């Protein structure tokens, strides 16, 4: 039922024409041409590039140490960064003071724009190592050194209840969530390709077995699986190890989609001339699979991987939200949203839900990008 026995559509004449020009282009060029035409996909790709830049430069972009807490600055709403002071360019934020309102028990903050706290680019801040090696204390934006007083601060996206800088935490959360997705996809790619390829290439009993495996994996609800496995981690594992373990677990159950795609391609490709030719010329099966068949749809794999990445991110976010994935003090989109999963956040401090924005954006962008890639990669696609 997976493969459509009806032959691929008959391309209308008009497409023949287009094909003819394109037939002279290399595969890569061809994909690029097609991809470039998906403007949404191009924009989405740019967005993804921006996000992965954040992953690399999280420290540089951050304004505060993400773990630095100050209770009495908790739940502060986002501070607006003013670029101009009147007509004069003078980036600053307004001073904010606040306390718990003794009547409502809410945190009340008052912005006082008569006191301006100067903001500058490449300001000095906390020490960190750029790319993990270059020690520096320069940050993209920060408070201007010369006017800095101890009570001055900048919280672009407000603070959480422990008074930690949401903006910096979001940057670090981006780092973890986006890399966990990458590792997960890489792993499920390997699993999906190997099992899918074997399944599609050999067919018969092996195919049947692997397909049953897929069916079984898919019929087990993922949450209990994750829970069971997460609980089985050795207790002395550090957060980093748990992070990887969770990645592995997620990908152990995420490969099935990719596996199916790969299998489908292999099934149709098995009978194609170049495979037959390779077989006749006595190439080993491994060589046929990895040298001849796989490269012919690398682009598909890339597209499928792009489409799998958002699923990973959602899985991580959901698991962390349920308290089954990453746990504080690890910072990820999921753990950040875990803090936002309550009535008081929605009612009183909605800026704690800001981490949902990158989640949605990245997932959107990855989907658009994946779609674009898939369309671009598939010469038979509409």
């Amino acid at each position, binding site marked *: 039922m997976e493969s459509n026995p*009806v032959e691929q*559509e*008959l391309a*209308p*004449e*008009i497409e023949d*024409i*287009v094909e*003819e020009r394109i037939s002279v282009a290399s595969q890569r060029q061809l994909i690029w041409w097609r991809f470039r*035409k998906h403007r949404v996909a191009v924009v989405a790709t740019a967005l993804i590039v921006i996000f992965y830049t954040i992953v690399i430069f999280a420290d540089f972009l951050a304004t505060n140490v993400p773990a630095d807490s100050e209770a009495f600055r908790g739940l502060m709403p986002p501070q607006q960064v003013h670029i101009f002071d009147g007509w004069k360019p003078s980036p600053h934020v307004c001073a904010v003071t606040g306390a718990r309102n003794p009547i409502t028990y809410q945190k009340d903050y008052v912005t006082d724009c008569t006191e301006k706290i100067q903001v500058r680019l490449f300001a000095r801040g906390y020490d960190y190592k750029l790319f993990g090696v270059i020690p520096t204390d320069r940050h993209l934006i920060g408070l201007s050194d010369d006017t800095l007083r101890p009570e001055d601060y900048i919280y672009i996206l407000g603070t959480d209840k422990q008074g930690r800088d949401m903006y910096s935490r979001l940057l670090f959360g981006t780092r973890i969530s986006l890399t966990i997705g990458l590792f997960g996809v890489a792993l499920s790619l390997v699993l999906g390709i190997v099992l899918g390829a074997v399944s599609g290439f050999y067919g018969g009993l092996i195919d049947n077995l692997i397909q049953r495996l897929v069916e079984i994996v898919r019929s087990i609800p993922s949450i209990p699986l994750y829970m069971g496995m997460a609980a089985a981690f050795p207790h002395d594992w550090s957060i980093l190890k748990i992070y990887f373990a969770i990645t592995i677990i997620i990908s152990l159950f995420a490969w099935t989609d990719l596996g199916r795609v790969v299998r489908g391609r292999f099934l149709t490709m098995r009978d194609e001339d170049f495979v037959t030719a390779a077989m006749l010329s006595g190439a080993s099966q491994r060589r046929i699979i990895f040298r001849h068949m796989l490269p012919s749809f690398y682009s598909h794999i890339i597209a499928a991987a792009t489409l799998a990445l958002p699923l990973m991110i959602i899985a991580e976010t959901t698991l962390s939200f349920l308290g089954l994935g990453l746990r504080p003090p690890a910072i990820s989109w999921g753990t950040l949203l875990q803090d936002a999963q309550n009535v008081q956040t929605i009612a009183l401090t909605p800026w704690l839900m800001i981490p949902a924005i990158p989640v949605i954006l990245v997932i959107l962008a990855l989907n658009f990008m994946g779609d674009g890639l898939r369309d671009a990669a598939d010469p038979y696609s509409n």
Partner: protein
Amino acid sequence: MQSPEPETVVTDEDTGTRPLLSVEDLQTYFFTDEGTIKAVDGASFDVYSGRTLGIVGESGCGKSITAKSILQIIDNPGRIVGGQVKLSSNGDASKNLLEMEPNGEEIRSIRGGEISMIFQEPMTSFSPIHTFGNQIIEAIRLHSPLDKEEAHGLAVDWLRRVGIPSPEQRMSEYPYQFSGGQRQRAMIAMALCTEPRILIADEPTTALDVTTQAQILDILQTLQKQNDMSIIFITHDLGVIAEVADVVAVMYLGKVVEIGPVESIFSSPKHPYTKALLSSMPTIDAAPRERMPSITGAIPHPQNRPSGCSFHPRCPSYMSDICGLREPDLVSIGTDQQASCFLYGRN
């Protein structure tokens, strides 16, 4: 609608002067991202009653689009932007099909009713998930007041006429249970069961093997005679054209570059393109190992349509002073042959 009566053959004289269908300056453009593609750009030809018009050309020359444009069944993003398709009615009046609402009742009664169409791919021209009977009965009932039973009877009758064995049983079968040739026969049955005045056959034999091809052509010709039907036969196969057509229109890049009776076209082609086409046709008497002549160069991208005569970059008789500058019009050469080429008068 009853089974055809061979006695009432309409003679040439009845309609001799007035074409049954007249396509004038048809323009169908595709509006894509990359720009406008002029798939059909001013095609004109006439179809006479009981006659067969053959349209030839390389793939991409716009012949199928022309056919579809007649019935206004162009896919997005294509649009008919100009021209007229006049279908003469029983009286004197003729209707311009292009003035009809594209999905309106009027044109729909013509589609499949007065003008039927069959397609190249018998494989995919039927819905694979509906029984064949379902699809043919639907066609019949769309254009006649017959009830299901009667339509079924008529359908079986037609299946038999196109030479499908045990048609009763086949009615409840699915298209994938038919062979390619049978499918094309069934297709013909479906197209003709409404007794159309014109049949558009869009490469009906291309996907078939030679024997089946001959059978299908045979059936078509037989039925044409029986029903006094006009046929627009579209193909890239000059051999087939020679066999079936009365009049031939040669298309290049959305234009009819030459039109004329089949004998004159084959015996004395005028347009350099027609000549080139004919010379690239394999002949039995060709010397062994002789390299087949082919037209130099590739069909230009429709977006980069050459200026002037669109054939001029490939034309062996290219005249630098005019061909690349102006478009030639279709001019009469001899009695009933026309070609658009500056070799034959500079318009």
